[in-house]
């Protein structure tokens, strides 16, 4: 293998890992909601799109840097998630699965077209950001905003993981995921836990969206591809599995990156979709899901 090729491979794997960190965080949000209440939020990518637009608008209105806007965006998204649960999800909790799919699917169509209606289909970009440029790491050139995004995503991921595994509320969340009735007998209010799961799920993409807005285009359709990658990541890691989302995120990031360089850029998402199909058909519970 020539030196140039190995340099490209190193560069590609590093870029893939950086993307993978962000995919993992987006997938975490989806998997928390699914794990606690067995509902797939089809509008998850659109939540991400909303948080990217929020970061963009805060920048346009107040000149706020996306990284500074991050806490604000996250809080807004948290309450948006809770609100979505209360208004849209609670009424269909005991409805047939078809109604549950339509509910979040309707939200997907609504949010995407609302963004298109308000902002048109144009691609936008935050022009001047506080953290820019690139750095050299082990011979690979990495964009600094992307490094920051990956680091930020991992911090948020760790916080959510610690919250779920180390705090009393986190244990309650796990208890509800495990067995709703038994948890209710222990005095856990499952309704509040569901709302919390939606809040956390949305807050994850709140963080991811603000970090992405720092270096990625903002447009109404942006949620489509990230949302789908999140489904694939969650399926690969195992629906409901938090560590699964982490490893699957990195795997998807690197695979997509390598496919983009070594197969065809236009085919890289097709490769990711094929991975999803292979995983669900051969190992339906994913890498780390429970049977």
């Amino acid at each position: 293998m020539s030196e140039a090729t190995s340099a490209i491979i190193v560069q590609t794997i590093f870029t893939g890992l950086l993307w993978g960190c962000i995919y993992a965080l987006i997938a975490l949000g989806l998997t928390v909601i699914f794990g606690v209440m067995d509902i797939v939020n089809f509008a998850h990518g659109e939540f991400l799109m909303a948080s990217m637009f929020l970061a963009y608008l805060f920048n346009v209105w107040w000149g706020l840097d996306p990284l500074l806007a991050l806490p604000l965006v996250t809080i807004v998204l948290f309450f948006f998630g809770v609100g979505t649960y209360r208004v849209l999800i609670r009424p269909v909790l005991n409805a047939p699965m078809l109604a549950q799919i339509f509910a979040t699917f309707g939200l997907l169509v609504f949010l995407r077209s609302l963004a298109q209606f308000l902002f048109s289909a144009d691609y936008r970009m935050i022009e001047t950001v506080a953290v820019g440029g690139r750095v050299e790491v082990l011979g690979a050139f990495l964009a600094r905003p992307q490094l920051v995004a990956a680091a930020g995503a991992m911090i948020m991921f760790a916080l959510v993981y610690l919250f779920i595994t180390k705090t009393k509320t986190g244990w309650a969340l796990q208890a509800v995921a495990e067995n709703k009735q038994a948890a209710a007998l222990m005095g856990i209010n499952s309704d509040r836990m569901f709302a919390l799961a939606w809040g956390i799920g949305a807050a994850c993409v709140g963080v991811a969206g603000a970090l992405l807005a720092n270096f990625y285009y903002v447009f109404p359709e942006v949620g489509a591809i990230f949302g789908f990658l999140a489904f694939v990541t969650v399926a690969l890691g195992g629906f409901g599995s938090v560590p699964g989302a982490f490893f699957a995120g990195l795997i998807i990031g690197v695979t997509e990156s390598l496919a983009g360089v070594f197969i065809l850029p236009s085919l890289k998402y097709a490769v990711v979709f094929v991975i999803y199909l292979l995983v669900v058909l051969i190992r339906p519970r994913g890498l780390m899901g429970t049977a």
Partner: protein
Amino acid sequence: MQEPGQKISLIPNVNLKTGAVLGVIFLVLAFFPAFVSSPFYLHLMILIFLYSLLGGAWNILGGYAGQVSLGHAVYFGLGAYTSTMLLLELNLSPWLGMLAGGLAAVLVSLALGYPCFRLRGHYFVIATIALGEIVFVLFVNWAWVGGAVGKYLPILPASLASFQFARKAPYYYIAFAFLGAQLLCTYLMEKSYLGYYFRAVKDDPDAARSLGINITRYKLVAMALSAFFMAVGGTFYAQYVLYIDPESVLPMMLSIQVCLIAILGGVGTLWGPVLGAAIMIPLSEFSRAYLGGGGTALDLLIYGLLIMIIAVAKPSGLMGIITRK
């Protein structure tokens, strides 16, 4: 009990009033092109018929058999591409091309459906999205079928044989006839044992299996019927517009739209998709015509809102409100 000599009605158990209303609607539609010459309104009606056909095709699998597909544009695209490529390469009549497209769609749907039907619920839905996207990307990168540029159909002398017409009225009647044929098939399916098996597969697959119903087989039957009618719609579209590309015949948005039409009107009902299309298509076309361009997405905004309201308040769709079920 069927009395000897009594006529077998295609619409039994329908009271006189409903029958009269349907009859009047049929007559109005049958003579519509004779009174209305505005191309805009004829185009609108053609689109309503086409999308009723597509929504009805989705409904066979998604509504009756309960397998929600968000990748049905694949079969529409297969129909459009098969008949178009056969016409371009072999000069084959689009009518035969339509049957070939239907056959291709059925075969592909069975090949894709067989493994995917092992998946349940959300896994299946996401798998159909994945398949839709994979096929889209493959066609964009496939030079022989025109890639992202697409293919123009050759302009032939207008005639029934060439499936090309200078005026809109013939297209109107063809779409009308296709829709009628599909409604008839769906009606017969609904009343036959298939309809009951589909419902069993949808409502309680475990119970159906324990009763000895081969679930996968009936899901595949529903899939094949559904894919066939999608492909017929695809060929009609290609002959009507005379230009196809992946963006127009294979997009994710088309998959979403055919599904929304059925949901809005009422899943698992004969007339639901027709009702859904009769509301959604004018909504789209008027918002496009009067609110400037197709880029505003106002129609989809209203759709999304309607779908959420229906999911929360009335999962049986608008048909559920009309029939008060």
